[in-house]
C-alpha cells in the first residue's frame, strides 16, 4: 500500500478518480431515476468527438470535452428530447457523431507523430493512470463542485424526478432545474471520460446507481450508496490494476457489474424470504 501511494501517478489517480467517482455516483443516481441513461450514452459519444476535435483545432483536450458536452446537453434540453435509445433518428445522428470522431482521430494521427496513435484508445477507454497535473486539479475540483451543486439541488430535483406534475404545481422551476441537471450531467460525463473513457461511462454513472436502487428505495440512502459504490469500485479497480497489469477501466467496469449482479441476487433472495 505504501509502495503504491509512493507513486505520484497512483496518488493522482486515487484523488482525482475518487472525486470523479463521487460525482458520477451522485449524478448517476438521478440519471437512472430520471431514465436518462441514453442521454448519458449520447454525451459519451459527443465527448469522444469533442475531445479529438478540440485537439485537432489546437485546443486543450479538456476544453473540447467540456465544451462539446455542455453545448450538446443544452441543445438536448432545448429540443426537449430525452435521448431514448430506441429512437432511430437519435441513433443515426450519434453514429454519425462517432464517425466524425473517427475522422478527427485519423486526421490528428496523420498530422502528428505516430506516437499519438493510442490517444483515441485513451479517450475511448480512459487513462486514469496517465493524468496530467492540470487534469488532476481540474478533475478533482469539478468533481467536488459537481457533488456540492447536486446535493444543493437534490431535494427539488428528487421531487421533480419522482412526481413532475405535483412539483410544478408546488412552484419548482422545472425548466431551470432540468437545464441545470443536464449541465451537471454533461460535466460529469466529461469527467468520467477521463477516468473510464467515453465507451465505459455507463460503468461509472449507471451501474453503481442501478445497484444502489436495487439495495434501497429510500432516495437519500440510495444517493449516498450510489456515490460510495462508485468510489469503492474506482479505488478497488486502481488497487487491482496496480498488482495485475490489466487495464484499470476493465477492473472498474467488472467490479461495478459484479456489484450489480450481487445486488440483483440479493434482492431476489430478500423477496423470496420476506
Amino acid at each position, binding site marked *: 500500500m505504501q509502495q503504491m501511494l509512493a507513486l505520484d501517478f497512483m496518488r493522482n489517480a486515487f484523488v482525482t478518480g475518487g472525486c470523479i467517482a463521487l460525482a458520477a455516483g451522485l449524478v448517476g443516481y438521478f440519471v437512472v431515476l430520471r431514465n436518462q441513461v*441514453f442521454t448519458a450514452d449520447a454525451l459519451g459519444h459527443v465527448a469522444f468527438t469533442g475531445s479529438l476535435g478540440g485537439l485537432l483545432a489546437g485546443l486543450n483536450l479538456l476544453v473540447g470535452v467540456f465544451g462539446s458536452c455542455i453545448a450538446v446537453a443544452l441543445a438536448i434540453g432545448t429540443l426537449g428530447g430525452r435521448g431514448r435509445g*430506441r429512437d432511430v433518428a437519435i441513433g443515426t445522428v450519434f453514429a454519425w457523431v462517432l464517425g466524425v470522431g473517427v475522422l478527427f482521430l485519423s486526421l490528428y494521427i496523420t498530422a502528428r507523430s505516430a506516437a499519438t496513435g493510442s490517444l483515441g484508445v485513451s479517450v475511448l477507454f480512459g487513462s486514469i493512470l496517465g493524468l496530467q497535473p492540470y487534469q488532476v486539479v481540474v478533475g478533482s475540483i469539478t468533481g467536488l463542485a459537481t457533488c456540492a451543486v447536486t446535493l444543493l439541488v437534490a431535494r427539488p430535483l428528487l421531487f421533480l424526478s419522482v412526481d413532475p406534475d405535483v412539483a410544478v404545481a408546488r412552484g419548482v422551476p422545472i425548466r431551470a432545474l432540468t437545464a441545470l441537471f443536464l449541465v451537471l450531467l454533461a460535466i460529469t460525463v466529461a469527467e468520467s471520460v477521463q477516468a473510464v473513457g467515453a465507451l465505459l461511462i455507463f460503468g461509472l454513472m449507471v451501474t453503481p446507481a442501478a445497484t444502489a436502487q436495487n439495495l434501497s428505495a429510500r432516495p437519500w440512502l440510495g444517493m449516498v450508496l450510489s456515490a460510495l459504490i462508485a468510489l469503492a469500485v474506482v479505488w478497488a479497480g486502481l488497487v487491482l490494476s496496480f498488482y495485475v497489469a490489466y487495464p484499470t477501466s476493465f477492473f472498474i467496469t467488472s467490479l461495478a457489474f459484479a456489484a450489480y449482479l450481487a445486488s440483483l441476487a440479493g434482492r431476489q433472495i430478500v423477496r423470496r424470504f420476506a
Partner: protein
Amino acid sequence: MPSWDLVADIQLLLQFHFMQNAFVAGTLVALLAGAAGYFVVLRGQSFGAHMLSQVGFPGAAAGVLLHVSPVLGLIVFCLAAALGIGWAGRNVDAGHRSESAAIGSILAFSLGLGLLFFRLYAGSAAGIYSFLFGTILGISDRDVELTLAVATVSLGALVVIGRPLVFATVDPDVAEARGVNVWLLSIAFLVILALAVAITVQIVGTLLIFALLVAPGASALQLTARPGRALGLSIALSLAFTWLGLALAYFTDLPVGFFITSLAFATYVAVRGLKAAATIRSGGLRFVPA
C-alpha cells in the same frame, strides 16, 4: 487519386487483393444488413442491434486472442447474446428504467472485457480501432469465406420467413390466430440479426453499426410503406453506402466508418426533409413532430 474515368477508377480500386476482399465482403454485408435492417426498423429493434454489436466486441477480441477468425468470435458472442435476449422473453426496450440500467451495465462490462482481451493480445491501437470503427484493410480470405457462408444462410432464412415475419410484426395477434408461431419467428429473426451484426462489424465496426443496419431501413420506410419496395430500397441504400464508403476511404485514405455514417446520416436527413416538404405542400399535417 481518382481520374474520374469510371472504368479506370474501378480498375484502380480493385487492383489490390485487400480491396477485392473488402468489396466482396462489403457487398455481402450490405445485402444482409439492408434486408435485416428493414425488419429491424419495422420491429422497433434498432436498440437490440446496437446492443448485439457491443456485446460482439469482446467476441472479436477473443477471436484475435485465440488466433481464430475474429468473425467467428463475433458470431459466437452475438448468437449467445441474441439467445439471451430471446430467453429473457421480451423485446429489448430502452424505454424502461430498470431495463435500460441493466442493459447499460451489461454494455459497459462487455466493452471493458473487449479492452482486456485486446491488451492481453498486446495488440496495437489500430487493432482496436478496426473493430470499433470498421476498416477496409485486414479482411482475410477466410473472413470472406465465413461472410459468404453466413450471408447466404441468413438471406436464405430471411427469404423463407420474410412473409410471415412481416405479418407477425405488423399484426401479431391476427398472425397468432392464423396459426403463425410468432414466438419462434421472433427468435429466428434474433438469430438472423445476430449473424447480420457479426458480419457487419467487419466493415463499419461495433460502434457505427447503425449506419448499415438501421439507417437504410429507416430511410426506406420513410419513403414507402409497401414491404417489397421498402425492402428493396433498404438493400439498395445499404449497398450504395458501402460501395461509396469503401471507394472514398480508398481514395482519400480516411476512415471508412466516417464516410458510411456520413452517407447514412445525410440520406436520412434528406429523406426526412423531402417527406416533411411533401407533407406541407400537400396541405396535410403541418409540423409533424419527429
